[in-house]
């Protein structure tokens, strides 16, 4: 569980930014030293035990720690949950996403959960109740305008929570939530050993069985956080409601339906499930890509498809231990055209976004071709354009001509299509061609092979970064190397149609930034460097990891710059914090101070936005 330095630094600064210096210092110590008890933390960080405990408390509340009890000393030991810590930078995006799919009420609940950390349902309800009471107490609002509340009743809160739990965006804390994956694995191992293999594991068969049992055990642990969701499903609430409220999701459920939701067990402690949130963010990102490559109507359709498809996908990357035995097809379900059609807003004109041409210039059979199987893992980047479907091609073209000529007679050049057919046009377009946004896996059934798709998009992202750094010619050279493997300068030159001097200069430039590398191949065993052949190559994996590091480092720099600015404007900021100034900064502050204050806010916004943008790249490279 090694964490790269840049990430550790980034997480610490994020904690600092959000929860203050004390927790950050504890966190930094944990990053540096690994698993520690309170006593040791205080020793290393030069903080008093009391301070350390305070810090730990905050961190624990926000799920940023793992802990376990050391069997020998009986002391609790803490370590960092860096994935969660890093996710703090995504909060803005997550709130946006929830706002868009579940309306302001959902956003409000999510925001409170983000602020509070893990919360008992009863506490959350009480907090909201207090607020509702306050607003409903008319006397208090005689002069001021009554603020509009996102959540207006307990029933609404309950209903919103139900939706979020069903979507897995919120899950439940259980006994193992605070154990690191490694700990849990150890524990399950031990249990399986005790129960089934008390005599030790003998032979390969037993070994396989052992692995299966461990996977099962781990899956059980993982499922534990979904208890509430399961209970809701048993209640049948979701399907009942779906019948009533098609297309109404964004507004929250209408009043009468809130009563249909079962009351949630108030003792349960809930938290935000980042894993699922990231799945949603990935969908958003994919839609963005489609918007760019194919157009926005198609992007919208894709968004609806993904929404259906990811309903039961809990995480972007399957766990190597638990999911090794379940093939990808099972993990990713498929959806039908009609399921998507049911969700497409009636205001969307599906005829937009695709060119209109007579049907005789379209090969139906090629467009409708089914690909029932997921692509096998290919060697990445090698000759991707020559996909393996060459053999079948002959058969197809024959039947094709027939079909086309038949069509020609009956159809008007541009036939008016029915709405489902219009929708299919978009889906077929998505299924065609390179990045493989969609796979047409059965008659009117669609699925997405996320793994190869994300791999392709990662490469696209890298390409655009290379293009921005080294220009189009740089991109050209790198992509040649990626498809062809290692190449000498001569070969590179004839493939790239670049002048020798330009080529050499570009390659050197890219070697300095780490996109390209050279390998020396001696001509004979004397290894005279003058006679050696030099081959160029690019190491895509390495390019990814150095970019990831750079992303973290850049975020760190953003946070540091922000801190510097905050120090500089300390006086103005503290002024703005005063209760009599707050909210009326413009009137209360002197012009010059206010200008500084406004400028600081602007910078802060810019830097934060920038960090989120960087996270877009980073998430694509490592998390999606």
């Amino acid at each position, binding site marked *: 569980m090694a964490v790269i330095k840049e990430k550790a630094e980034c997480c610490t600064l994020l904690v600092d930014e959000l929860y203050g210096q004390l927790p950050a210092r504890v966190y930094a110590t944990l990053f540096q030293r690994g698993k520690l008890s309170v006593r040791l933390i205080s020793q290393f960080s030069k903080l008093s035990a009391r301070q350390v405990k305070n810090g730990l408390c905050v961190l624990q509340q926000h799920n940023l720690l793992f802990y376990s009890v050391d069997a020998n000393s009986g002391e609790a030991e803490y370590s960092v949950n860096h994935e969660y810590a890093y996710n703090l930078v995504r909060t803005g*995006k997550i709130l946006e996403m929830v706002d*868009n*799919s579940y309306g302001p009420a959902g956003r409000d609940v999510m925001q409170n959960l983000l602020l509070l950390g893990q919360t008992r349902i009863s506490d959350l309800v009480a907090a909201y109740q207090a607020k509702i009471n306050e607003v409903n107490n008319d006397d208090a609002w005689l002069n001021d305008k009554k603020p509009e509340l996102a959540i207006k009743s307990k029933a609404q809160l309950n209903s919103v929570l139900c939706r979020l739990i069903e979507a897995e965006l919120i899950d439940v804390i259980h006994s193992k939530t605070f154990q690191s994956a490694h700990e849990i694995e150890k524990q399950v191992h031990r249990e399986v050993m005790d129960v089934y293999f008390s005599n030790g594991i003998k032979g390969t068969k037993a070994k396989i069985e052992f692995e299966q049992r461990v996977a099962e055990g781990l899956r059980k642990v993982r499922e534990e956080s979904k208890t509430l969701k399961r209970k809701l499903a048993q209640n049948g609430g979701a399907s009942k409601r779906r019948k009533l409220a098609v297309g109404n999701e964004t507004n929250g459920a209408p009043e009468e339906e809130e009563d249909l939701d079962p009351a949630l067990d108030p003792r349960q402690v809930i938290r935000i499930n980042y894993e699922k949130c990231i799945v949603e963010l990935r969908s*958003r990102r994919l*839609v*963005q890509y489609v*918007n*760019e*490559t*194919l*157009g*926005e109507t198609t*992007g*919208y359709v894709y968004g609806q498809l993904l929404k259906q498809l990811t309903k039961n996908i809990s995480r972007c990357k399957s766990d190597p231990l638990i999911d090794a035995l379940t093939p990808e097809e099972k993990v990713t379900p498929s959806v039908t055209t009609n399921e998507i059609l049911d969700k497409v807003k009636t*205001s969307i004109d599906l005829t*937009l*976004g*695709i*060119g*209109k*041409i007579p049907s005789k*210039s*379209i*090969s*139906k*059979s*090629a*467009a409708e071709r089914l690909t029932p199987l997921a692509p096998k893992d290919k060697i990445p980047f090698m000759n991707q354009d020559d*996909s393996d479907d*060459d053999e079948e091609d002959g058969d*197809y*073209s024959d039947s094709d001509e027939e079909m086309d000529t038949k069509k020609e007679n009956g159809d008007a050049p541009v036939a008016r299509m029915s709405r489902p057919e219009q929708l299919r046009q978009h889906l077929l*377009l998505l299924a065609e*061609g390179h990045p493989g946004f969609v796979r047409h896996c059965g008659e009117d059934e669609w699925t997405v092979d996320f793994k190869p798709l994300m791999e392709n998009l990662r490469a696209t*992202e890298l390409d*655009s*970064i290379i*293009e921005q*750094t080294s*220009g*189009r010619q740089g991109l*050209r*050279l790198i992509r*040649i190397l990626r*498809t062809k493997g290692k190449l000498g300068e001569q070969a590179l030159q004839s*493939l*790239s*149609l*670049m*002048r020798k001097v330009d080529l050499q200069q570009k390659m050197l430039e890219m070697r300095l930034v780490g996109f390209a590398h050279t390998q020396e191949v001696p001509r004979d065993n004397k290894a005279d460097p003058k006679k050696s052949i030099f081959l160029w190559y690019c190491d895509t994996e390495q390019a990814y990891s150095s970019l990831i590091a750079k992303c973290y480092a850049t975020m760190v*720099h953003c946070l*540091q*710059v922000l801190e510097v600015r905050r120090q500089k404007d300390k006086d103005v900021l503290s002024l703005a914090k005063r209760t009599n100034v707050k909210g009326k900064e413009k009137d209360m502050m002197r012009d010059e101070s206010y200008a500084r204050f406004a400028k600081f806010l602007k*910078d802060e*916004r810019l830097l934060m*936005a*920038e960090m989120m*943008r*960087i*996270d877009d790249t980073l998430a694509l490279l490592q998390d999606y």
Partner: protein
Amino acid sequence: MADRDKIQILKDALYEAARDHGSDQRLFTQRDLLDMQVIPQDNIGLLMQVIQILCDEKLFVGNTTASGLSWRWRSREDAKKYTSLPNSEIMMVYAMVDEAGADGIWNRTIKNKLNMADSLMKHCIKYLEQKGYIASMKNVEHPNKKMYIKANLRPSDRATGGPWFTEGELDTAFINELQEIVFDFIKQKSTYTSHGGGAGVPGVGAQGGGAQQREKNPKKGVVQGTIPHSEDISKGTKRSAGEISNDDTAAPAPAKKTRPGKPQLLPLPAGYKSYPTVSDIAKFIHHAGITNNTTLSEADIQQLVDVLYYDGLVEPVKVNGRKGYRVTRIPKQDPRTCNQRRLDHDPTKGGIVTSFMGVEPSASGLMEAPCGRCPVYDMCEEGGPVSPSNCVYFRRWLDGDEVQEQVISI
């Protein structure tokens, strides 16, 4: 005496027979020559005598191959050149240049092979050049070597580098121009132009009915007042967090783009059969007569298209095993041709445009931040000589536009 006459006759007969049986590249073995039925009674001795005379007169060239001796003929004209040479050294040098054919030969190779003194070789070459028998040439693979070629030969493609080279130099202007033409062609053939109002379909027969209809009733209900974010990107401005949210799935974004009057490129439906193939492109280039003095083969065009592919400008689409090409990121493409864009481009307004083909790379967060392009990124560290707290790039990035703003507000 009679013998000599006879041999003279036989010699001419054999030479003519050999010429009838193949080009000057064909190698004839002893058996082949005997089978021509010129030499009476398969008399090998006689044949060898005749061949000897032909070789002496430079009309035959001997070759030793693995299967034994063989010969090929040489034209009388060329033979005369040989016999007119004053001495054997010059003849040997000429022979080597002759052998090298259209690829040419390096003067050092001649010297080493013939084991000749430098001055002597130079003398030979000078003589041959003056006579107009050989000429110096440039070889792109070895631009610094002094190469010679027979004067009446055209250097081979390997030596000249093919159609992309002009006088031994890669003709980048020519390549670029051609690339733009090919790119425009692919763009035009692989997309659908939706005009605000009537629609034409270049290349696939105008079918504007559908487009016209839908433009008439744009979905007003869902049009929002926000700027589509694509414009932000093209302007290179930074987006705030609020704007990021605009490209969300649930937002009724699709209808926003329907601004009337602006032509826009759309992708063609799946299964479109006529994405241009390399041979389509080659035909187009040929008919357009753009390359008057060079003929471009399909392989040459393929090379060009491959470069466009590597540049990320076009991508192959396979429909029924037919590999056509289409441009990438169609909705972002400028419907104008490269040339039009160049003409419309106002150099006083904004940055350097390196290429008028295709689209700018999509902005990525990392590259927008100062660190993404920072020259001292590797040394930057808190406490070091360069650090975020004293970073000038960040200062410019954050404060730069404020300075401008102030100027405007005054």
